[in-house]
């Protein structure tokens, strides 16, 4: 298993477009049914990520980004219902039984959390936590797994790894902890790494280090990365392609360069305008007025219409579909031609 994936690995010289996607998501929907009509948190989103590529997923809090990530791991809370197709390396995950999911989790698809403090078990040594993943998935014995865990800590740039492996989470700094979390996520060399705001809880210099580390490891391991963030500056730096989510739907899809050069959807434009610029005096940062509506699935027209400066009557009446507008770009807005 391991060896044939190594054979695939030196494929960086191939043209990017010909690489088949590792992860394909088609019409993913997550509902939370309730007697009062329920809530559709993720509404029919589709995307794919190729080997070695990074997809940025941006949007405000509460627009379904994190729920998408949990759905990919089969961890939608039991009160919710997931529909749509998820395909990993050509194998469908949607109809996986509860018994088979643990083989995918952590081994083929891994997740890095936002808060490195809470994502680590406070009562277990760092090295043991990483070793645990290896015992689960590769059936390694304790000593072997421990060796590999130390190796893994070294890989993510933790100095004196053998000693750090014996530390408890509270004995490490935030940056070190996030490195440990990444080491744990990558222990089994997953095909897909989902990073859910992995740098939000860290200060800026550490952020840069962690991003650099993630890119470097991606080059080494070649996994596809789904990078969830509301920090556009970070996404512009790390992502190849970007999808912008609003109220459970994708409103714009483009390559990272195109999106930041010329955002088409008014929501994307609003998000980019809110970024402060260094060297330009601003009395007040621009904001997008209002918040994501909480029961967004009931809105008949465009879900952003209530906050959109360009919205008119037709926007409120008819929901815009995601449609291609230029080469490699899609947007869901009536006002873009």
């Amino acid at each position, binding site marked *: 298993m391991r060896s044939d994936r190594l054979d695939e690995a030196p494929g960086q010289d191939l043209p990017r477009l010909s690489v088949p996607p590792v992860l394909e998501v088609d019409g993913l929907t997550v509902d939370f049914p309730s007697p009062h009509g329920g809530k559709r948190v993720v509404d029919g989103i589709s995307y794919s990520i190729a080997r070695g590529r990074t997809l940025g997923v941006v949007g405000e809090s509460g627009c379904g980004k994190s729920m998408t990530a949990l759905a990919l*791991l089969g*961890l939608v809370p039991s009160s919710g219902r997931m529909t749509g197709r998820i395909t990993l390396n050509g194998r469908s995950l949607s109809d996986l039984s509860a018994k088979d999911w*643990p*083989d*995918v*989790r*952590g*081994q083929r698809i*891994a*997740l890095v*959390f936002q*808060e490195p403090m*809470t*994502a*680590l*078990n*406070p*009562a*277990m040594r760092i090295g043991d936590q990483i070793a*645990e*993943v290896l015992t*689960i*998935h590769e059936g390694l014995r304790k000593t072997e797994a421990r060796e590999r865990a130390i190796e893994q800590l070294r890989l993510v740039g933790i100095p004196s790894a053998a*000693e750090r492996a*014996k*530390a*408890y989470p509270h*004995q490490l700094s935030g940056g070190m902890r996030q490195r440990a*979390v990444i080491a*744990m*996520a990558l222990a089994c060399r997953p095909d897909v790494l989902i990073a859910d705001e992995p740098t939000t809880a860290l200060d800026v210099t550490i952020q840069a280090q962690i991003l650099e580390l993630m890119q470097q490891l991606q080059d080494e391991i070649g996994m596809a990365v789904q990078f969830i963030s509301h920090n556009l500056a970070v996404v512009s730096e790390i992502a190849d392609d970007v999808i912008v989510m609003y109220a459970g739907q994708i409103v714009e899809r483009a390559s990272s360069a195109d999106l930041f050069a010329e955002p088409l959807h008014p929501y994307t434009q609003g998000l980019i305008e809110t970024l402060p610029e260094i060297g330009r005096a601003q009395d007040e940062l621009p904001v997008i007025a209002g918040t994501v509506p909480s029961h967004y699935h009931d809105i008949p027209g465009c879900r952003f219409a209530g906050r959109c400066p360009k919205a008119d009557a037709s926007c409120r009446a008819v929901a815009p579909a995601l449609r291609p507008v230029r080469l490699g770009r899609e947007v869901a807005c009536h006002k873009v031609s």
Partner: protein
Amino acid sequence: MTTATLTRASSSPWRLRWRRFYRNKAALSGLIVLGLLIVFSLLAAPLESFLEIDANNADLLSRFDPPSAQHWLGNDELGRDVLVRLMYGGQVSLAVGFAATLLGAMFGVTVGLLAGYFGGRTDAVLMRLTDGVIALPLLPLLIILAAIDLTKLGFSTDFARSGAASFYRIVLIIALVDWTRIARIVRASTLSVREREFILAARVSGAGTTRILVRNVLPNVIAPIIVACSQVLGSVILFEAVLSFLGFGIVPPTPSWGNMLNNAQELVTTAPALAIYPGLLIFITVVAVNFVGDGLQDAFDPRAN
């Protein structure tokens, strides 16, 4: 810098707890007293052979003998050495205490973990069961349980009459009722640990339910378990004394502090010392255990530094 790193590297949660416990003088003295009591009980056989006496040998010619070089605390109503019997009784009383607490804890922890982690119907059923056991009138129930004829359950008459049988019986009886407090505490802690992100993280990395319960939940509820156990231990020792005092516990001639107290009750006016010694030992033990329990509570308190 180097010293700072060194102290940090050695500050595992257990060391920190021990340090906090160590600073608490009452708890530390409780632990020392408890240790001394254990040593005291374990010295029974060596002292017996050293003094060349037999604790179970009745000698009606030396009833109520005052303390002497051979019988340091004198003899009881059957002419047996009081000190050595107190020491053997300590072994029994402490062993019952630890065994019943441990057995009850194992059951209580399992119930609490399952109820807290799975919630819903599992939780409802297990917790109603716990409430039910708590609501039972204890003493009458225990008396009935203690009166069960073991030979009718298929055990041999020899076993049913032996001291071992009464030991197992009382351990089982006490464990049957003392798990509830531990189960409730474990459930409450599990409920809060379950929602922590590292549990989700463990599921994300592919851990199964059993592994999550054993490796991720249990180590994070161990503190309340230990504290609860120390508190239960005190009441168990007392409980054994009560049962033996009522004649339903350890069967004579095997001594326990409880049944020594029972034997002494009709002699309180003639030989008060026979009642005072075991009573005092029970008292000291329970106080020591409670001090240790309080100290553990403080040492494991996450809000302490």
